[in-house]
């Protein structure tokens, strides 16, 4: 039995898990963290950085550090969402050759699946290091509200990373799997998933026989923690502008620092009721004076700034409940998922709305990854403890365009898959010998407002009066979530069909090309691993020295010996920094000894004086 890992490919953080001996576990990365930032950067020297290492250098390399690529995946260039991202992202988003959007880092242009592939590859390696074997199969989670194009693009990302994505599952569903796995319960639950970038709500029935049935699901792919951060940033920027007359948004580096500070403040306010945002030297004034940003943010202010965002989540909950045909009191538990659900106000509103306290038994950051690994194991593992079936739903309505530019529904949203539906259609003109089937996904009555998944033409119809020739259109979604559409001339039995795939803005050739590219990359990346350790060690020591610096300086500043030692230490750190920046690992390795000495010396000074 081949091992399958589960990856929660998040907007801001990703997590990988695997089922070992019937127990799902989250795998920590080399830094010991269970989540890895979904960040990718290219350094001046052309090196690709992924995860924590990319996040650490984001402030100094904002233009070439990509985060939240998930918000762009599977989206067309001319959508408002992409336009909005161009406004707010410090990195460069450019138009791709298929009306898709791409990202420029240094002088190379990357497709979005390519960027996501880098993150997936990182997670793959984390798992391989832990398991000590090669991993090829994966279950990846996506927001429930992702459309088919976004799912396809995510699959493409897996392919580029050299992974066979055996199943895409919805994040809240995944969370429910982790919640219900091995518990032997019969329960109807709601999963409230407010993550970094997206909001999802799903309602499921869990049966002790190991069946998980999604009843309904809904969400908003542009509502998440980042929007909360954005509110705080705006508040800070406006305050600063009021005080100094300078718009901080014009400065990319200031914006990146604001972003970090806003996120940090927001997180802190989940534990305390007020926090100070302190950003010294945020920008220089017109008279070349250094300006600092210092402002007190209270929990109450944060709640006020974000009240409408929380309101929106509650509205969506209400809608979903209606979809499922359930009353609030029929829900037996509420599962909170995603970092944003740590915010007390969110918890309060959720409890208020559902009239029950949410379940506290799951870890909001890890539960989605765990669920993905469970689904992976359930598919390939025949053992009785993994005997379970997930009955997921299609999150969007599928249909075709009919006369008048209307959208004719064939498979309504929240239909359990696998499923199929047929409807007869007729020709509209005299002697019409062909019909064009436009396959669409969405909830709008107008075809043009929905997402186009594909199109094909059925030809060779009999010449006849309008409305006489009947064409039966059948939509099918199989258990793997693949949509296929057939159109059949009822009289002649002539058929035409398409399988809806490869609409992620990449051609098959391009994916092939990128796979070669990425596998080359995987090789180089592997060689790097030994050196990565050196890098990390150096970084850790430098951080420690810098932390102790002010204290040591205060203690030894009086003596000549002290000044000497401090200068020497400064020299060692600066040297190591330069080596780090240039990626000179050999040099860094040599420098490790002097770094270690300095660290020991500093520790000694501080220890003695204490």
């Amino acid at each position, binding site marked *: 039995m081949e091992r399958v890992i589960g990856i929660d490919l998040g907007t801001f953080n990703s997590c990988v898990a695997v089922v070992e001996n019937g127990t799902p576990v989250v795998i920590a990365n080399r830094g010991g963290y269970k989540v890895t930032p979904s960040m990718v950067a290219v350094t001046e020297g052309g090196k690709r950085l992924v995860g924590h290492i990319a996040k650490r250098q984001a402030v100094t390399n904002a233009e070439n550090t990509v985060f939240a690529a998930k918000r762009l995946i599977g989206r067309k260039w001319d959508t408002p969402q992409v336009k909005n991202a161009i406004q707010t992202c410090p990195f460069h988003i450019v138009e791709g050759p298929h009306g898709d959007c791409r990202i420029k880092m240094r002088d190379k242009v990357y497709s979005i699946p390519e960027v996501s592939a880098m993150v997936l590859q990182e997670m793959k390696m984390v798992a391989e290091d832990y398991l000590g074997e090669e991993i090829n199969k994966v279950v990846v989670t996506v927001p429930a509200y992702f459309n088919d194009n976004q799912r396809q693009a995510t699959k493409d990302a897996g392919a580029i990373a050299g992974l066979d994505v055996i199943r895409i599952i919805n994040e809240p569903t995944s969370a429910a799997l982790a919640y219900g796995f091995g518990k032997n319960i019969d329960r109807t639950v709601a999963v409230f998933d407010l993550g970094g970038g997206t909001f999802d709500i799903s309602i499921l029935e869990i049966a002790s*026989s190991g069946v998980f*049935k999604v009843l309904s699901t809904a969400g908003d792919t542009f509502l998440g923690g980042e929007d909360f951060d954005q509110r705080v940033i705006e508040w800070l920027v406006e305050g600063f502008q009021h005080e100094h007359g300078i718009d901080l948004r014009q400065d990319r580096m200031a914006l990146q620092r604001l972003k970090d500070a806003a996120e940090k403040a927001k997180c802190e306010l989940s534990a305390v009721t007020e926090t100070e945002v302190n950003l010294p030297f945020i920008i220089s004034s017109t008279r070349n004076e250094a300006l600092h940003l210092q402002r007190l943010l209270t929990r109450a202010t944060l709640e006020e700034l974000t009240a409408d965002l929380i309101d929106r989540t509650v509205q969506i909950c209400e809608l979903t409940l209606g979809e499922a*045909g359930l009353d609030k009191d029929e829900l037996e538990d509420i599962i909170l998922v995603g970092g944003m659900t740590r915010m007390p106000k969110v918890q309060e509103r959720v409890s208020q709305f559902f009239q029950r306290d949410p379940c506290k038994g799951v870890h909001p950051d890890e539960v989605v990854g765990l669920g993905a690994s469970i689904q992976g194991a359930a598919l390939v593992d025949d053992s009785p403890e993994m005997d379970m079936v997930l009955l997921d739903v299609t999150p969007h309505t599928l249909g075709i365009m009919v006369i*008048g530019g209307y959208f004719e529904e064939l498979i309504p949203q929240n239909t359990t898959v*696998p499923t*199929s539906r047929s409807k*007869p259609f007729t020709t509209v003109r005299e002697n019409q010998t062909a019909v064009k089937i436009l396959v669409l996904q969405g909830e709008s009555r107008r075809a043009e407002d929905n997402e186009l998944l594909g199109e094909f033409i059925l030809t060779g119809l009999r010449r006849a009066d309008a409305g006489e020739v009947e064409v039966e259109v059948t939509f099918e979604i199989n*258990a793997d979530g693949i949509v296929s559409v057939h159109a059949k001339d009822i009289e002649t039995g002539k058929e035409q069909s398409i399988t809806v795939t490869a609409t992620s803005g990449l051609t098959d050739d391009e994916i092939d090309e990128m796979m070669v590219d990425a596998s080359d990359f995987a090789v180089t990346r592997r060689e790097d691993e030994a050196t990565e350790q050196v890098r990390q060690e150096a970084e850790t020591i430098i951080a420690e020295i810098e932390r102790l610096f002010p204290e040591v300086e205060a203690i030894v500043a009086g003596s000549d010996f002290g000044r000497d030692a401090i200068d020497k230490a400064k020299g060692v750190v600066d040297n190591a920094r330069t080596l780090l920046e240039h990626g000179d690992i050999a040099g860094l390795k040599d420098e490790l000894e002097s770094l270690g000495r300095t660290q020991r010396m500093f520790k000694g000074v501080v220890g003695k004086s204490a």
Partner: protein
Amino acid sequence: MAEEKIPRQVEDADVGALDISGQEAFIHSCIDGVLNIEDIADLMVLAPSDVFESIERLVSLKVVEWVVPKASSAPPETELVEDVEIDGELQERIIEAFHRSDKLNHYGLLGVAMDADRGEIRTAYFALSKTFHPDAYYGKRLGSFKQQMEVVFRRVTDAYEAVGRPKKREAYDRYLKQSLAVSAAEKQLDRGEARAQAMADALTKTSVAERQAQPVVGTAASIDWSPSKAPSKAASSIAPGTPEYDRMQRKRELLERRLRGRSQQSPRRSQPIRSIPVPTVKVGHKTALRDLTRSLKQTAVLTGGIDRADRHIENARVAEAEGDLAAAANALRMAIALDSDRTELQEQYQRVNSHLRVELLDIHREQARYEASNNLWAAASISWAKVAEAAPDDPVAPRGAAKAIMAAGGDLRKARDFALRSLELAPDSLETRLLLARIYIGAGMDASASKEIEEAAKLDPGHEMVKNLRKQLGG
């Protein structure tokens, strides 16, 4: 299931000369070499085992023979020998479920009783999911079984969704009950005519009746109608709310056509016993059965007619009091057939009949609404058409019919006729005008469509649909 036998009439066998019961005679008349035992049982609301018994007797009398139909209706042999990685038992289960699932209603599909509670339904559904969801066999070679499993899974899921939640279930149960009631009433009405005729015939052919009197009485008394078993069988043959329902409806219509066709083609067989109406459904069926049993007895001892007419009048009174208007109307018709001189019977019959029509109208209307809201457009178009027929002054019904025909992809000419009728009754309806315009566009009659759109524009020039349709015609 594996070796299904189908009964066929032996040609040139003289059934009239045989000593058989009414039930056997009727079963014999149903046998056409196509229907199987279950079909016949469905039609007669008998347990299949009873039908089987009767047919066995007819076989022993050499008027009926068993034949094994060609492979078309049975699963092809290849399905059993396909090289797949699931065991034989499961393969058989899949094949059986696949071939049977379109014949069952939601309860039958889930394998639960019609009064099962939510927990039972849930448990049944989840157990079926684990058997039929292809994920349970991920990575295994399933061949053609995968698609069959997906079909079965979809049907089971549809069933669960229709009856798994109290609100939806209520609507479905109401619909199911009404479907049964309405077809019961209609069949009684339709057959009432034939039955009254048969009675009249019987009166004039007393000698025939007398010759057959004895055996009929005996059988009638001993027939085990087992009403508790029969209704569930009848119920399980209808599955509205699913595409299978349409198929089943078509099949039913086919069966009825066949039966009608047979009696028309062979008038010589219209002996009294043959013309006995068939109680096919559950609702009102006790009354109908009682009525039938009585009339069998009565036929047997037929001498005059007047006192029998009184009994029918009494039956009608009881039936009406019980709210079974169809039975009441039929009883009155019988009475009239037996005693055509009493004009008050005619009046009474007219009164009951018009009540019945009103009741049916309401049911059809409600059904049409349910069907339309559940996308059962073909069914909705029929229901609306019936309403339109019964309530000629109601503009909503023909419009509903036109809309449903459009939605079902049906005959545009019919849709147009209904829309025009609706418009005649309510000329100022924007909705109807636009509907008519869309029908014309659908039929490629652009000039007529334009005219309707302009009429609609007069009613509401700013309407979005008016604009859309105009744009569409322009381009």
